[in-house]
Structure formats: structure tokens, C-alpha cells
């Protein structure tokens, strides 16, 4: 170690560029800085020169080093903005009861709400993807190569933020989940060889994450819960010896996992817990006014005597069911956000039973996670953080909500803290409609105007104090058309809408305060997923819909676009598939893989006969060529492709795992 210490001490540094830093920060420093100083600056707690000589034998020395600088550990204040944590359990329970009373009818909750399934809820609407082109993996500038799959083999929205999927790889092993069964394959031989399977108890409909040799399986708990509400399971499995996978933890949560993300070894879940399953009364069969009145009164009494354990999610790490959230880690959301509980849960993959969790008293809808923030959205008419509870207008479908609340959370390790709230007019289709770069959140929204015509916008927001404030917007995209795909780059966005002629818009985001429409390419056929290929090329996967005397016909379509001149985007090449084919990536971009080294995109389609074809689209000399591979008819969500570090490509289709010859 002494040589590195020597390097540390000898490394020459310039004088600190204080004025440049002050100048750079001053422009955007938040206005509310003028607080009384907290006293003199603590002497720099960081020793510049090293005085310690460590015993290089191992972990010795830790104890003495701890004594050197007595800093307390960093703790996050969970709620730093307008959402206030409950002052007490009593106050929290009163909030749930009060809001519950406004919602209950003679038949129970709003005349009966269908509870969400447990397990992973993939969200409605557009799909679950998107991204950026200039991202980098490792040290290689990604701009020239396009965005490859994550290190575990998944096509993700945000480089560095991994997403759960049906299959994961670490390069030498492949793990897939099918129902309750985890299967492990060795990829080091000429063909993938299944080395083990493991049934996960009371587990179904899962997806997995992979951290080193630890599999984190997230799914539905099939063991009925006491109150018959949906519950979820998070099972970790060690693959230290791949032939003998071993369950290392098994945690159940009360609710549905609506989002899961992984940053390095940090796992973050968004758990949605619906309204409690209370034993409501019912009016008699005729629904006579008297019995309706009696039932309503009874149901109101039931809510008035409901308990916190009925409202708040539970966690069971194997030692019995406990309340997941402390009352003062739950913040009260505006009444317009659908009643229920959203929990943001974090843990390290190596310690899945040691979680940190905070909650909101509402069911948020979309979760988008950038590299350093989590954004949750709540649709509905939101009136701001005032004490003016209004009857909830509940969640309105896509294109219908007049306002959407966005809650921003800072992410620190496994902890999350709510730091700002904002609202946008209109509704947000899915997580791919959101993107954050350099502290600016860009959102594609859709609003229905007075004439009942829907129209889309791009809105830019930035955190200012405890608010996410709008800094710019561009309106009027695709009048009367439906937003079908959005892809965000550092300085621009490509947005596609669909009607009859399907425009592809390019939006300049260089100045967040003034998003500008740069161009619109009107072409037949719309894209439902865009993937950046680097070198000014963009691939659009979508459909071409035509109308003739036989009615509507549609077919899968893949287009290659030159976006090097954003004012004049050109379609270089287009390939159509057979009638009635449909791209799976439209709903799930995990069904897409870009292979930068091969200049090949792999993406699958469903066919008219219910089968699946995998399209291999080669980009050569700025044009596209295709090869179709018929895949056994399986669940489309089990058709995946991924590239291994050595360049080989794996095709998984249901239980079949093979290497694909390109």
C-alpha cells in the first residue's frame, strides 16, 4: 500500500478554481440560501495528507481509523418538501379513515374496486421503456455505438439503472424464471447447458434481477393472505455454486410491486398497497332505500373503526408479519391521488431483509428512475399542498387526466427522500415519456382540449427549492393523434404520434427553457419503440396501418432513420413484415436488443397465427436487411435475446436457451 499512498501524496493538484465554481453555481443556486449560517465551518474533516500506515495484512486498522474523524453517519430526512410525514400513528389513521369515509358506499369501496394482482404490475398504456443515445457504458463513449443491453443482458431505459426481466446473465451463467421455477444455465460450453432448477415456494409470475451471483426474484405470493389482499414475494437465491442454487432470504410484502430497479447493488422497489379488504355490509337483494342506508351506515362504522394494520403494508422476513412503515415515515399525499399506500423500499442485494422504506398515503401510477432520482406520478386533479381536501376525482385514464402530480425523490444508496413536487397539465403515458438529464426532467404529456381533441406537449421541469417548476414547454404536437413513442437524448427528443399519416417530431432541448420543434417527418406507419444506434442513426420499431375496401390492415414495420440533421430527419430504409404481425417491443422494450459489434438489431413480433418470429435486422451501408427466425410459440414475454461479453448471442424462447448464429 505504501506506493499508492506515495502516489496519493505526490499527485500534483492545481489551486482550487474557486471563482469558476462560484460562477458556475451562482447562476442556478437556489434562491432560498439566505439562512443563518450554522456556525463556523468545521475544519476540513478530510485529511489531505495520509498519516496512517495500515497493516496490509487484512482488515486490521479499521477501528483506529474510525477514531480519526468522528463524523456521525449520514441520515436522510425522508420528507424534505411539501409532503409532510404523519406526526403520529393516530394522525395517520385519521387521514386514512377520513379519506376512506369519503369513498365508501353502501356496497363497499366505490361499489367494488377490482384489486390489483400481487406481484409485478407492469403498468398500463404505452409500454415500459425509453432512453438516450449519448450514454456511456464503462469508458467507451456510447454515442458512436448506440445503446447496448445492460450488464445483465436487458434492454433498459436508463444506462446504469437495471430493470427486472424474465432472464439475466452475468456472461458465464444465465438464469431464467418461469412460473415458480428458476433455471440456471452454464454458458461457457459450445451450447448452453442447464445445470440446475429450483422451485421457489409460493411464488409465481415473477421477474428477476441479478447482482453478482445473487438472484433477486420478485413475484406474486401464491400463499393466500389473511385478509385476501394481494401480496408479493422477494426471494434471493445464491448462485455461488450454480449446480446448487440456495435460497438465502424470502420476504413477503403486502401489496403489488409496481416497479423495481437496481443501481449497482442497491435494489429499489415501489410497492403499491390498495384499499384494505374490510368486511363491508351489503344492501339487500332489492337494494331497497332503507337497506342501502343501513349498509352505508354500517360501512361507515367499519371504516371509522378500521385500524392502521389494515391500511399499512406488511413485511414478513420469516419472523412473522410486521408493519413495513413507521407512521412518521409515511407522508400524506394530496387527496386527489387515489387512496392507498405507496412504499419506496430499498435494500442492498446482500442484505434483503434489512430494508429502508418510506411511504405515501396514495397510490401513485408511473415510476421512472433516473440515475439519481425516482419520480412517481399521481394522476388526478391536484390542487397543491393546501389544506383544502377535495373529493378525489380518482385516476382518469390516459389522455383524460387534467393534471398529473410528479413527486421527486433523491436516491442515496438504499434510501430515498422526497425532495420536490410538481404538476403538469395533462396525463403522462408511461415511464418512457419521462427522462432526466443534468437536473432537468423532460416529460411528454397528452391533454384533451376543449373540443375533445387530444394533443401532446413536451414540458421541461427543474427542481427549485421544494418544487419541481416548469421551465419550458412546447405544445401542439400531433393534434388529434395519439402519442406512440418518445426517445430522449441529452439535447433533443424524438417523438412519434399516430393517426393516418404518422409524424415523427424532433424537438430541440438544448435550452430547457425553450424546447423548439425542429422538424416533422410525415410517413406512413408509426413507431412504438425507438432505439438509438449511434452515428446519427435511429431505429424505429412499429406498425404500418393501412385502410382499404377490406377495412383496416396492419403489419409490423422497422424503419431506419438518419437523425444527424434534426431539421431534416430522413427515413433511409424501411422493412415491412407479414400482414398482422405486431412488434412485442411496442409493449415491452425488453424484447429488443441492439448488438453494437454486429450492427444488428434483434426484435420479436407476434404473427397472425399466434406464433412468434424473431427479426434480425442488419444495418449495412445505411440500409436495412432482414432475416426472420421462427421461434417456437411461447409466451411473448419469454422471448429474449442478449449478447455475452465474448460476443456470442443467446436466444431464449420459453424453456429453450440456445446460441444464435448471426
Amino acid at each position, binding site marked *: *500500500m505504501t*506506493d*499508492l499512498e506515495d*502516489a*496519493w501524496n*505526490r*499527485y*500534483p*493538484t*492545481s489551486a*482550487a478554481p*474557486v471563482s469558476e*465554481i*462560484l460562477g458556475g*453555481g*451562482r447562476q*442556478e443556486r*437556489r434562491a*432560498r*440560501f*439566505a439562512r443563518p*449560517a450554522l456556525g*463556523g*465551518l*468545521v475544519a*476540513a*474533516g*478530510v485529511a*489531505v495528507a*495520509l498519516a496512517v500506515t*495500515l497493516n*496490509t*495484512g487484512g*482488515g*486490521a486498522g*479499521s477501528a483506529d*481509523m*474510525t477514531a*480519526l*474523524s*468522528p*463524523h456521525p*453517519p*449520514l*441520515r436522510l430526512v425522508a420528507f*424534505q418538501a411539501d409532503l409532510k410525514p404523519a406526526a403520529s400513528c393516530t394522525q395517520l389513521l385519521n387521514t386514512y379513515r377520513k379519506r376512506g369515509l369519503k369513498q365508501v358506499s353502501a356496497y363497499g369501496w366505490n361499489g367494488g374496486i377490482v384489486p390489483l394482482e400481487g406481484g409485478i404490475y407492469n403498468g398500463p398504456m404505452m409500454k415500459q421503456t425509453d432512453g438516450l443515445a449519448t*450514454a*456511456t457504458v464503462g469508458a467507451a*463513449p*456510447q454515442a458512436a455505438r448506440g445503446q447496448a443491453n445492460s450488464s445483465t443482458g436487458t434492454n433498459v431505459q436508463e444506462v*446504469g439503472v437495471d430493470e427486472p426481466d424474465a432472464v439475466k446473465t452475468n456472461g458465464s451463467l444465465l438464469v431464467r424464471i418461469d412460473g415458480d421455477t428458476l433455471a440456471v444455465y452454464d454458458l461457457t460450453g459450445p451450447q448452453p447447458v442447464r445445470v440446475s432448477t429450483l422451485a421457489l415456494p409460493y411464488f409465481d409470475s415473477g421477474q428477476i434481477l441479478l447482482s453478482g451471483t445473487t438472484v433477486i426474484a420478485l413475484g406474486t405470493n401464491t400463499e393466500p393472505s389473511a385478509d385476501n389482499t394481494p401480496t408479493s414475494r422477494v426471494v434471493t437465491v445464491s448462485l455461488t455454486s450454480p449446480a446448487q442454487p440456495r435460497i438465502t432470504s424470502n420476504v413477503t410484502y403486502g401489496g403489488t410491486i409496481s416497479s423495481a430497479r437496481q443501481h*449497482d447493488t442497491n435494489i429499489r422497489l415501489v410497492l403499491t398497497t390498495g384499499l384494505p379488504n374490510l368486511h363491508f355490509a351489503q344492501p339487500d337483494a332489492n337494494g331497497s332505500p332503507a337497506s342501502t342506508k343501513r349498509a352505508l351506515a354500517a360501512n361507515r362504522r367499519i371504516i371509522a373503526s378500521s385500524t392502521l394494520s389494515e391500511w399499512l403494508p406488511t413485511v414478513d422476513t420469516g419472523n412473522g408479519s410486521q408493519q413495513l412503515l413507521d407512521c412518521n415515515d409515511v407522508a400524506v399525499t394530496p387527496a386527489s391521488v387515489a387512496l392507498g399506500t405507496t412504499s419506496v423500499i430499498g435494500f*442492498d442485494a*446482500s*442484505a434483503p431483509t434489512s430494508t429502508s422504506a418510506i411511504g405515501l398515503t396514495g397510490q401513485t401510477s408511473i415510476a421512472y428512475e433516473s*440515475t*439519481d432520482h425516482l419520480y412517481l406520478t399521481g394522476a388526478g386533479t391536484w390542487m397543491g399542498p393546501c389544506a383544502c381536501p377535495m373529493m378525489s376525482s380518482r385516476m382518469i385514464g390516459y389522455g383524460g387526466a387534467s393534471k398529473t402530480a410528479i413527486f421527486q425523490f433523491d436516491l*442515496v*444508496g438504499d*434510501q430515498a427522500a422526497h425532495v420536490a413536487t410538481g404538476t403538469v397539465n395533462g396525463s403522462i403515458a408511461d415511464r418512457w415519456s419521462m427522462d432526466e438529464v443534468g437536473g432537468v426532467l423532460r416529460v411528454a404529456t397528452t391533454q384533451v382540449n376543449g373540443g375533445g381533441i387530444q394533443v401532446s406537449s413536451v414540458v421541461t421541469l427543474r427542481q427549485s427549492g421544494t418544487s419541481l417548476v416548469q421551465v419550458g414547454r412546447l405544445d401542439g404536437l400531433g393534434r388529434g393523434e395519439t402519442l406512440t413513442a418518445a426517445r430522449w437524448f441529452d439535447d433533443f427528443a424524438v417523438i412519434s404520434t399516430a393517426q393516418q399519416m404518422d409524424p415523427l417530431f424532433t424537438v430541440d432541448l438544448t435550452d430547457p427553457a425553450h424546447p423548439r420543434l425542429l422538424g416533422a417527418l410525415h410517413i406512413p406507419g408509426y413507431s412504438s419503440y425507438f432505439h438509438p444506434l449511434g452515428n446519427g442513426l435511429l431505429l424505429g420499431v412499429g406498425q404500418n396501418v393501412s385502410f382499404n375496401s377490406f377495412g383496416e390492415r396492419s403489419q409490423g414495420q422497422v424503419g431506419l432513420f438518419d437523425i444527424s440533421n434534426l431539421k431534416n430527419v430522413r427515413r433511409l430504409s424501411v422493412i415491412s413484415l407479414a400482414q398482422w404481425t405486431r412488434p412485442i417491443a411496442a409493449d415491452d422494450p425488453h424484447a429488443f436488443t441492439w448488438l453494437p459489434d454486429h450492427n444488428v438489431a434483434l426484435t420479436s413480433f407476434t404473427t397472425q397465427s399466434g406464433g412468434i418470429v424473431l427479426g434480425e435486422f442488419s444495418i449495412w451501408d445505411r440500409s436495412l436487411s432482414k432475416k426472420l427466425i421462427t421461434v417456437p410459440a411461447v409466451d411473448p414475454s419469454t422471448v429474449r435475446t442478449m449478447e455475452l461479453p465474448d460476443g456470442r448471442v443467446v436466444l431464449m424462447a420459453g424453456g429453450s436457451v440456445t446460441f444464435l448464429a448471426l
Partner: protein
Amino acid sequence: MDYEDEFADFVAGRWPTLVRAAVFLGAAPHEAEDLAQTTLVLCYRKWDRVRAADDRDAYVYRMLINTLRSDRRTSWWRKRDLRDLPDQPVGDGSEAAAIADAVHRAMSSLSIEQQNVVVLRYFVQLTEAQTAAVLGIPAGTVKSRLSRSIAALSANHHLAEFAGGSR
């Protein structure tokens, strides 16, 4: 103390360590200064939160790591590529480059997670609890990663090579 003066003191005090930490975490000399500057500009924008934090250093190093490890797609990393900066470290630039190169070779035997721990805990001398807070991992993990990293570094042949060149 005036708000700006307070921050200026903070910058002057942290600068050399931040730059060195960036180099040890894998940045090239000109990137390291760029990165330290970006981190401090971010701190300035959020200065009231930084100074209200239980622990400023943990906050600052968390920002440094975030900027380096997970935010390469934005600002500093990208601008660096586009500007194609001439390599102009201070003083004898070749010395900085030589040291950085040797450090990178030595550190490359460690995983990113191990590098993070060894730089923060051993070189920057954050406490175990601070390191755990910055990286969002349990304190016990800091301890075990540190001991494995130190063992690996002492056994690493790059160290011997480096020792030979510099002594």
C-alpha cells in the same frame, strides 16, 4: 461568515482531496479536475442542503461518485468528449499522467465496488459510517470490502512495478 466565503473555504479545503479521489477512482488527470469542479458546482447549487446535512463530506463524496460512476451520460463527461480538450494538467503534466497511469493499473485489480471503498475509506479517510452512507451499503460490508481490497492491492504485481519505477 458570508455565504460565498464559507463555500469558498469549503472548496479550497476539499479541492486537493477531491481531485486525488477522482484520479484514484479512475479519472484521467484532466477529467479529475473537471469532475471535482462539476461536483463542487453541484454542491454550491445545493449548498444549503449540503451544509445542513449531518455530514458534508459524505454528501460531497456521494456526489462525486454519482457524477463519476452513474452520470457519465451528462454534462462533464460528454462535454469532455466533445471539446476534445488538450491534456493540460498542472505543473509537470507528465508527472500527473504517470502517477495516474500507475494508480489506474494498480486499482484495476479491484472491482468498482472495492475501488469505491478503498478510496473513500483508506485514502480520503472517511469513517466507516461515512463510507457506508456514501455508498449506501452496510458498515460491515465496508469493513469486509476494505480488507479484501487491501489484501488484493498488496498482492498485486502492478504495485511492485510501480514501486520499481518510482523509487
